[in-house]
């Protein structure tokens, strides 16, 4: 298992460590998931997300590759802004969901999932064959931190210099300094809150983490709170809700696919825009919590499966993402919990979203 820069700090702060895609990561610290979740919703949560991958593609054909490997349309993005989309395989399955940050016309930073560190780079190298560009894997040279929540902006403003955070829109980014160390600040996140993701040189990471973690508004959080926060925000997790056998339209993520973009994209021909199943958000009443792999039924017949489920600390009930056969998505549904059919309510996603920063173009 691999460790991030943060292991010693984690161990000193009561972290419960688990293997996440080969990374030794905290599920939570001493005060637990509920405390950390609440802290992020009401103040600011700090997450070490250095297990995720970071790849910079630059050079004369960097745009061409990035645009072709990616389902969303980079031609619509100006320098200093980012886009969410997918890297597809030839059957239209989602190799990874990624965010691309346009640093220059010939320079793109890709933030990818931990599980994509090898597969994504391999796929990009395959598509890059013969092209004039450089793929620079930054994953081990840098660390990635997320500061999320209503007070994240105020905290970061206090610590950062040489950048005006008010000029960074939602899904925008900029460069600044924290205690003289160079930081790459992105107004993106995975919690449904305003906040930032900050990429730093790995040697500066312990200092910057300590500084952020000791701010009075800030609570360090593990992957448990990250999961409950993202699920409340209706955001899919690659490996659970989407994977290389799942296509964007069935996951309800067609908005990040631009079928008519110039030059197309890899995997496009295989995409089914009228899928046989759909990812939906459901809630259960009472003391019932849907979990991953629980069956979804309609009139006693199995019509789908839960892919992520959790107790929502904000709603105080069980919420889940589940795939159901398309023709059943408006029918009465239930989740089979230990043999009991618990009625499920189909909800509109997201359940919780407090983002107020202006939307990027």
């Amino acid at each position, binding site marked *: 298992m691999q460790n991030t820069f943060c292991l010693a700090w984690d161990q000193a702060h009561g972290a419960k460590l688990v293997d996440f895609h080969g990374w030794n990561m905290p*599920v939570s610290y001493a005060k637990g998931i509920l405390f950390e*979740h609440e802290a992020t919703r009401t103040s600011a949560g700090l997450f070490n997300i250095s297990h995720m991958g970071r790849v910079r593609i630059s050079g004369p054909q960097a745009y061409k590759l990035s645009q072709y490997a990616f389902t969303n349309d980079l031609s619509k993005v100006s320098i200093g802004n980012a886009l969410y989309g997918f890297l597809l395989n030839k059957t239209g399955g989602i190799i990874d969901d990624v965010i691309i940050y346009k640093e220059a016309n010939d320079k793109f930073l890709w933030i990818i999932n931990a599980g994509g560190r090898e597969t994504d780079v391999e796929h990009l190298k395959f598509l890059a064959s013969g092209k004039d560009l450089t793929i620079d894997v930054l994953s081990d040279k840098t660390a990635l931190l997320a500061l999320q929540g209503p007070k994240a902006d105020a905290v970061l403003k206090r610590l950062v210099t040489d950048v005006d955070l008010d000029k960074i829109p939602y899904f925008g980014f900029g460069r600044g300094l924290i205690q003289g160390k160079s930081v790459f600040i992105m107004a993106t996140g995975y919690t449904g809150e305003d906040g930032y993701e900050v990429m730093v040189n790995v040697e500066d990471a312990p200092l910057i983490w300590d500084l952020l973690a000791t701010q009075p508004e800030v609570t360090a959080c593990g992957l448990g709170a990250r*999961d*409950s926060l993202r699920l409340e925000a209706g955001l899919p997790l690659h490996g659970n809700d989407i994977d290389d056998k799942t296509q964007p339209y069935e996951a309800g993520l067609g908005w990040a696919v631009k079928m008519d973009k110039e030059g197309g994209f890899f995997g496009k021909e295989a995409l089914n825009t009228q899928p046989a199943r759909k990812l939906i958000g459901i809630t259960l009443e009472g*003391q019932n919590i849907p*979990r991953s792999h629980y069956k979804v039924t309609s009139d006693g017949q199995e019509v789908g499966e839960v892919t992520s489920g*959790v*107790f929502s600390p904000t709603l105080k009930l069980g919420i889940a993402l589940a795939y159901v056969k398309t023709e059943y998505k408006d029918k009465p549904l239930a989740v089979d919990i*230990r043999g009991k059919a618990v009625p499920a309510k189909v909800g509109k996603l997201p359940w919780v979203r407090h983002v107020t920063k202006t939307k990027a173009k």
Partner: protein
Amino acid sequence: MRKFAKTHEWYDDLGGGKVRIGISKHAAHELSDVVFIELPDVGKKLAEKQSLCVLESVKAVADAYSPAGTVVEVNTALKDKAGLVNEDPEGKGWIAVVQLDNPNALSEYLSEEDYLKTIVAH
């Protein structure tokens, strides 16, 4: 004397074949953030290896087991505050009292020392 099960419950012998049941500190820590407990009804008869109750935490779900018997009391405080199981698993976070079918059933369970040896350090 308090006994433990390999399935992470503790059993306190209250005399007369009655035992108070809860989950171990280790189990509570592993489960973390318990939010709901499906408590059994008083009078419920439990067969050997039948689940006494289901504990739902934010991220996971687990069963607690009792030796065969009849539920005679449940910790109603858990209905509103399931988190007691995390705060004080081997005290205020007790789950139920069961009248055992076999008053000597506890003799088959582990001492605290032996139970702790079964937990793999990590």
